[in-house]
């Protein structure tokens, strides 16, 4: 088959091109390493605590309970650094400028008004801090609800002219237990949280898969510029064999690149890619779909440098949409929908299922189908473009 002769030669060309090889296989591994390291410590004790300013003008006991008991209990004190503020205005401004994460104010007469049934605590958060500034009101809110609970129980009992000592109420509250339990909705148990190193190994691998096919598009045009493509047309081959051969070449180099990233990241960083059969199937179909993009880039470009430029312009936005940079599961809904339009989005989602949800090849059937379908679609598009312009000009 001439098709494989051409494809084999393309693989050989890539292997000989040290720089390209280093870029396409080495860079994703470097990036994975940096990203993995960076996020290893996320949410750990390594993260500096949030600075929280407070003012307590309450004369009663509830204000004290909040600042000396609730905000210093285990599970909260690790990530909060409490600091008493001198000036209300100054404290608010510090939060507004992001120098402190939040400001908590318990107004004058708070304990008294709680007993009267209308207490109020003020929490001001840094608008730019969506995570930690959100955690603080949650703690305060919980405290407020606990206070409300007791107030309401007193009120309810009072309506039936019942009065009970506080100890009995506390005892009753302890006995009533209701809680929420999160479970995975899958048949198999999944890992608790996605491991950043693993996620980014897949993310960067898939992003550089796109760079690989864009590089492949460049070699297609390089053949035109070097007239080796012309020479192929002069050999006794059929026209489609050349196009199919180049496509197969891009496809094989893409498979090779992605496999290299998978193998190296597994051996060096211990990334667990999951079910081998699923990984193999996904890798092959992802490479197929991406190769289609490569062929379209080749069909749209006139020279190798134009293909490189167009490639970058196509790859980076696709990488963003496909979740190589900001994780798929942390994306806004519209982005997540858009990622369904990209080859790399489907590929990455597939790898995530294999890695963290312990999926098997059966769970990936839609992914495999979509990737193959997209690949065919791109090949058809590229053939139309080529036949309109002629492969040689």
């Amino acid at each position, binding site marked *: 088959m001439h098709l494989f002769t051409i494809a084999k*030669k393309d693989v050989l060309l890539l292997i000989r091109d040290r720089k390209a090889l280093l870029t396409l296989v080495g860079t994703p591994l470097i990036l994975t390493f940096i990203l993995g390291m960076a996020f290893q410590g996320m949410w750990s004790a390594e993260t500096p605590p949030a600075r929280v300013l407070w003012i307590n003008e309450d004369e009663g006991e509830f204000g004290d309970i909040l600042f000396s008991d609730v905000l210093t209990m285990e599970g909260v004190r690790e990530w909060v650094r409490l600091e008493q503020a001198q000036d209300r205005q100054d404290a608010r401004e510090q939060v507004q400028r992001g120098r402190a994460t939040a400001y908590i104010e318990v107004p004058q007469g708070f304990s008294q008004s709680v007993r009267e049934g209308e207490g109020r605590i003020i929490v001001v958060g840094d608008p730019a801090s969506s995570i930690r500034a959100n955690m603080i009101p949650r703690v305060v809110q919980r405290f407020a609800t606990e206070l409300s609970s007791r107030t309401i129980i007193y009120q309810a009992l009072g309506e039936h002219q019942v009065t009970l000592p506080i100890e009995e109420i506390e005892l009753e509250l302890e006995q009533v237990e209701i809680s929420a339990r999160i479970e995975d909705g899958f048949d198999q148990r999944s890992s608790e949280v996605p491991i950043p190193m693993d996620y980014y190994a897949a993310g960067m691998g898939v992003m550089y898969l796109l760079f690989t096919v864009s590089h492949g598009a460049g070699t297609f045009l390089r053949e035109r510029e070097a007239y080796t493509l012309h*020479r192929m047309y002069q050999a*006794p081959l059929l026209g489609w064999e050349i196009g199919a051969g180049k496509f197969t070449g891009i496809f094989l180099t893409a498979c090779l690149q992605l496999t290299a990233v998978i193998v190296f990241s597994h051996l060096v960083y211990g990334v667990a890619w999951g079910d081998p059969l699923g990984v193999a199937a996904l890798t092959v179909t992802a490479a197929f779909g991406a190769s289609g993009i490569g062929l379209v880039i080749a069909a749209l470009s006139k020279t190798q440098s134009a293909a490189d430029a167009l490639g970058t312009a196509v790859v980076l936005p696709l990488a963003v949409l496909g979740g190589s940079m900001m994780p798929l599961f942390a994306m806004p809904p519209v982005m997540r929908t858009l990622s369904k339009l990209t080859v790399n989005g489907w590929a990455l989602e597939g790898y995530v299922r294999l890695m963290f949800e312990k999926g098997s090849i059966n769970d990936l059937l839609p992914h495999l189908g979509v990737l193959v379908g997209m690949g065919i679609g791109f090949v058809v598009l590229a053939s139309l473009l080529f036949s309109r312009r002629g492969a040689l000009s």
Partner: protein
Amino acid sequence: MKAFVEVKDLGKAYQGRAAVENLSFTIPPGHIFGLLGPNGAGKTTTISIISGLFPPDKGDVIVDGHSLLTHPARAKALMGVVPQEIALYTTLSARENLHFWGRLYGLKGDALKVRVEQVLERVGLSDRANEAIKGYSGGMKRRINIAAGLLHEPRLLLLDEPTVGVDPQSRRAILDMIKDLNASGMTVLYTSHYMEEVQELCSLVAIMDQGRIVAHGTQEELHRVVGEHDLVRLEVDPPLEDPSFLQSILGVFAVNITPEGVDLTVSDGHTLLATIIAAITQQGAAVNAVRIERPNLETVFLHLTGRMLRN
């Protein structure tokens, strides 16, 4: 004699401009057929069509009875093509390149290996065959470029300006190799704008200009077109602005300004020389050097088109 290659009424236009028009010629087996013409005459277009790179707008090419239009694969299998450009993978070695091209021409296994070694031997690069081509000199690249066209032992070899940008030594080697190949029975189609090469190699010549064949035949037949004419080449200082006064001299057929001075096709150089020099001196210019050449393909071209080959 039955024709081995038959080119029938080829026509090809790019964006409405004709690159070749009504092109017909035949090559009998065992000949070296030269396609001579200045740059842009349509030689490369012609050879590209014959090699099957793209189809003609009209006409056909028959190679050993196989039509290029109806049986392209069979016709192409008979041909070896050596393009004008170094169409090779420069990061791969010569041997790897030859293996690749050999496979595309249907060679396999041991047969392929043997042929690659033979061809490397033939172009004298066996000892450096494992080096990447990008380290080769221009002449060496040319030789591998030719070697790639010889692998499948084609019966027809198409060479498009194979000596462009080559040092004299390599050029000599290439020309000798073509003669050798021809002697062993290979038919050759050779294009060049170097008159000397065509003159040395080719038993049959077609002269092309502006997409048409202006004359073709054996070299003797072509010389006869000019008759017993000489080419008189003069170096003149300062250069002549309007050489038309020379045309009025009896016996002068064509006048052509060159960078050095002026070229004239004349009936008898030796007798007319004095008159010509006198006429030029009268215009206030001095003749610094004189050369008289016997009829050759250059004179034929000049005679037929009024222009020089290399302009």
